[in-house]
């Protein structure tokens, strides 16, 4: 499969879970902050909101099996602007109940991962984040 801007247009958003391990205490401030390590996978799993909307499903679906995780939203156009493709890969082996699963594919160097971290919008936000 290849990039699918028709099903996942640039103005749409994808969702990525953030577990607490990615929220690290900053020695400078003492507060936890989101590390760019959450956005470095060459094949980064996400759920496409545009696909979920077709079935009337909202972001709660992405947390169905991970109630303790947090959630961020990333703009598809921003991802593509950083030389990434967004491929619809429904029902991967570890999530056979997820028809909305996609992979954001491409090399993510430190600058790219930092850009994604800075642009990520919290959907479910931890209370003590910097």
């Amino acid at each position, binding site marked *: 499969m290849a990039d699918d801007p028709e099903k996942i247009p640039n103005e749409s958003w994808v969702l990525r879970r953030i577990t607490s*391990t990615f929220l690290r205490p900053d020695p400078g401030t003492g507060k936890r902050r989101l*590390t760019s390590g959450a956005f470095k996978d060459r094949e980064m799993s996400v759920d496409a909101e545009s696909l979920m909307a077709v079935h009337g499903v909202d972001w709660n679906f992405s947390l169905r099996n991970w109630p303790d995780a947090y959630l961020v939203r990333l703009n598809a156009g921003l991802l593509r602007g950083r030389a990434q493709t967004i491929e619809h890969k429904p029902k991967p082996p*570890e999530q056979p109940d997820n028809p909305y699963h996609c992979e954001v594919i491409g090399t993510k160097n430190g600058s*790219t991962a930092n850009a994604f971290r800075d642009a990520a919008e919290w959907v479910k936000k931890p209370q003590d984040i910097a």
Partner: protein
Amino acid sequence: MDSTARTLSDRDILIRGDTSLETVATLGAEPDEAPAVVNLDSVRRGKINNDLQRWIGSVFPAVQEFLRLPVGWDSYNGKPLKLETGMFALQLLYDVMTPQVPVPLVAPTSAGGIQFEWRRDGFEMELCVAAPYDCELSYRDQQTGEEDSLPLTTDFSALTRIMRKLHTAQRLAS
């Protein structure tokens, strides 16, 4: 860390109990020399360098935590930190940490690596260790707009050079 660089093997790393690690990583050793030994049990007690007390207390527990992460810890396919990668990262940090260098934020990566992040006065710097001799250094100066990502494999001189920029940013702000 140039022609002497080599991949760590299992023989290089000993686990002593659950809080002490010992490595014979040869980051600076000549090929014919006995390998440098960094006994982290001693490191934790600050016997080798008093400055270690300042940062090892937050870095070492994080490394231990990441070594014990379960597969899938990130709710996807996240892997735990590999032991040799953790040891290599500690050795790198040991080489660059001076009293002028702030304590870094320490974080895992989903692929089994580790990264150190520094943020001071508009200057951000990040050292990601994916595996021994497979690292990346990223930095961004918010005042000048300068930013870059540099692969580090055998020549780690850029790490010292960019670390100086962090010092400069701190000095200018103080």
